[in-house]
């Protein structure tokens, strides 16, 4: 089976390399049969990847431990579902999954659903196949999922118990769907730059926009699942630690958010079109760069520059793509392409919004790579603690939040005197004062949230008074409401949390915040591949018992590891979060880490609203296929 998988990868490399040549030559010489051949080899590449992915799945399920990937990520006692998800448990498998999805999307967008636009599609396919070739080379020569181990172990190491969680099973593929789908707007960009005739590029713009919407939705869900998993599984009571892995998914999300706003106001041959292209390219290359960064440990290692091996190919790829785009745009400029000036105040606000999002991504980028940069100006390597990110992203994040409130009004009326524009100014000053003088970032955020909430309500009321809002408008409002709720959750859980490490004897009681906790005893249970020890904790409010929680520690036999399984009392007002950190069986003594996290669930509710809202927007644009909206209708 591994021979088949390996062979399919090598064949896929040849096919995608051939497809580039066939497509480019076909466009150059205008030869239909070459274009058809390029299209078919792209489909062939997809088949090869399907075969390798299925082969790897078969190996994982069968437990063929001669293959080191299987030995490292699967084991005999692993539940079937986690054997299947082990496909993306390691670097090589997840690269394979990403490439598989990406080629699949490209085939859908530029081969199946668009049979007639041969020349434009051929250029787009060539761009994505170039990326595919790099991925294939890394997969074959460096991160080979089918590599054999020198000794065949009798059982595999199993999936890291921390990763045996539904959120973690779904988190990587969700992100990869997002990353892979961003290849469509990216391919659209390169293909549009290549062709002088813009009619086909215009025709494909809705596709590029819809794929961006889809990609953004998946990226949002992926990031939220990762955060939720960290909160549920890691037991430190937080959901976001600003580590390079997390940042590398947040940066493309930010640029993609700007991309969607540009798509809303897109006009061909204007500044907005240029922004759209730069953001599409930026988002996709950030996805690739993030993978390079985290997979090859560029920033996580302490001292010596880690040898990235063939991972450096990702870095080369990113540079190559930008150079390519630069050359193509210069070429277009030489051919005399000029930008049409934009009319309408809406565009100014759009560009401010773009800059804020891009700069936010930039400061995160600098912070993430700081340990790496610091080698060049300091003898002592320096890293930034995570509060750097909180401090630096706060002003940008809060400014963006404020814009959510006032932008729809500014777009409709411009900068005129009203409670909304003056209010925004006042709230901005108040928030800055609260932050600097009272040192409470959370309170500053909540003040802005209250103002933005009032604005959202005012927008909806006004709109309903004027005319019935369409699904697209409503969808966008729901997304923004989701963002607002997430900010409320972040401020509440970040600014007003209580954390306590406590030691408890059986029968003993402690008070944390407004909760009383009593340790009632230990119980032991056996699961499918682990043994769990739980502590029974009674939760009191005043004198009345309101809940019973049982945080536990699970011991996994195959990997000989122990994980903490938290237990959480969830309410609209916040969570009471208990993690069992130590158990002394003889002394009936336990160590608990207790967190009181106000409002935290609004982050998850907000995320769900963002997804529902985007789904509504996608549904609306797919049903109507409208031309780009007239400027009066543009509201955020």
């Amino acid at each position, binding site marked *: 089976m591994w021979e088949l998988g390996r062979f399919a990868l090598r064949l896929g490399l040849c096919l995608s390399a051939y497809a580039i040549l066939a497509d480019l030559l076909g466009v150059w010489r205008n030869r239909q049969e070459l274009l058809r051949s390029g299209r078919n080899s792209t489909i062939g590449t997809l088949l090869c990847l399907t075969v390798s992915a299925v082969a790897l799945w078969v190996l994982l399920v069968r437990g063929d431990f001669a293959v080191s990937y299987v030995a490292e990520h699967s084991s005999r006692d692993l539940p079937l579902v986690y054997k299947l998800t082990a496909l*993306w448990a390691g670097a090589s498998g997840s690269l394979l999954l990403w490439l598989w999805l990406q080629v699949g999307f490209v085939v859908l967008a530029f081969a199946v659903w668009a049979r007639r636009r041969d020349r434009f599609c051929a250029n787009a396919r060539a761009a994505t196949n170039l990326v595919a070739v790099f991925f294939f080379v890394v997969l074959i020569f460096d991160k080979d999922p089918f590599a054999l181990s020198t000794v065949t172990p009798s059982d595999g190491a199993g999936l890291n118990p921390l990763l045996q969680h539904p959120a973690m099973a779904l988190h990587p593929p969700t992100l990869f769907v997002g990353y892979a789908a961003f290849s469509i707007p990216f391919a659209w960009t390169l293909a549009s730059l290549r062709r002088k005739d813009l009619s086909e590029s215009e025709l494909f713009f809705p596709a590029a926009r819809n794929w961006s919407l889809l990609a953004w939705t998946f990226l949002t869900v992926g990031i939220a699942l990762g955060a939720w998993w960290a909160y549920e599984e890691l037991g430190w009571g937080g959901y976001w630690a600003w580590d390079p892995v997390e940042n590398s998914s947040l940066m493309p999300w930010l640029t993609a958010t700007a991309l969607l706003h540009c798509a809303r106001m897109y006009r061909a041959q204007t500044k907005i079109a240029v922004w759209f292209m730069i953001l599409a390219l930026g988002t996709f290359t950030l996805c690739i760069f993030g993978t390079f960064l985290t997979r090859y440990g560029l920033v996580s290692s302490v001292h010596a520059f880690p040898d990235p091996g063939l991972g450096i190919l990702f870095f080369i790829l990113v540079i190559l793509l930008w150079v390519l785009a630069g050359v193509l745009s210069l070429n277009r400029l030489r051919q005399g392409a000029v930008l049409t000036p934009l009319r309408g105040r809406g565009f100014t606000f759009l560009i401010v919004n773009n800059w804020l999002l891009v700069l936010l991504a930039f400061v995160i980028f600098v912070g993430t790579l700081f340990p790496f940069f610091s080698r060049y100006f300091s003898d002592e390597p320096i890293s930034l603690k995570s*509060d*750097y990110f909180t401090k630096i992203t706060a002003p940008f994040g809060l400014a963006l939040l404020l814009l959510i409130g006032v932008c729809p009004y500014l777009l409709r009326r411009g900068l005129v005197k009203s409670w909304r524009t003056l209010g925004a100014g006042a709230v901005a000053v108040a928030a800055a004062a609260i932050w600097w003088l009272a040192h409470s970032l959370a309170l500053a955020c909540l003040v802005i949230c209250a103002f933005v909430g009032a604005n959202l309500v005012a927008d909806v009321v006004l709109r309903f008074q004027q005319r019935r809002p369409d699904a697209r408008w409503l969808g966008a409002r729901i997304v923004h409401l989701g963002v607002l709720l997430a900010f409320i959750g972040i401020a509440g859980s970040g600014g007003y949390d209580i954390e306590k490490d406590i030691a408890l004897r059986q029968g003993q009681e402690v008070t944390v915040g407004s909760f009383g906790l009593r340790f009632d005893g230990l119980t032991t249970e056996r699961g499918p591949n682990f043994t769990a020890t739980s502590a029974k904790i009674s939760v009191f409010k005043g004198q009345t018992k309101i809940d019973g929680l049982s945080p536990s520690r699970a011991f996994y036999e195959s990997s000989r590891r122990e994980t903490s399984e938290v237990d959480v009392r969830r309410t609209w007002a916040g969570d009471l979060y208990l993690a069992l950190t130590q158990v002394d069986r003889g002394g009936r003594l336990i160590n608990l880490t207790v967190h009181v996290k106000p409002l935290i669930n609004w982050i998850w509710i907000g995320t769900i609203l963002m997804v529902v809202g985007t789904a509504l927007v996608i549904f609306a644009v797919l049903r109507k296929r409208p031309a780009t909206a007239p400027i009066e209708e543009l509201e955020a």
Partner: protein
Amino acid sequence: MRKGAIIKLLIGIIVIGGGIGYFMFQAMQSSWSYYYSVDEFSAADSAAREHSYRLAGRVKAGTIARDLENVTLSFTLAGSEAELPVQYQGVVPDNFTEDREVVVEGRLAASGVFQADTLMTKCESKYQAKVK
């Protein structure tokens, strides 16, 4: 471009760039943390030890001691030559074991014990699945 537009652009760049630069500098200054291995840290002169440090090393086998009464974990952080006793209060990552590479953040107390306020385990290869 007209002269007025250029001046406007320049002023814009200076104001915005300066603002961001200032913010970044402010934020960095307070979260600056020197990143050392245990060996280098022990070799450094004691005057430099007043800052907040981030140290990387290995958990020496047989030195992990847990004081459940005081919710404190202590262990010896070992480099290739030097060793340093560490005390930590807080959540211990699930994959913290003997011989694991770990990173601690904190300060050196007068007693010569490193008081850590964060404890992170370095990712083993399997942890790579945490793709984000």
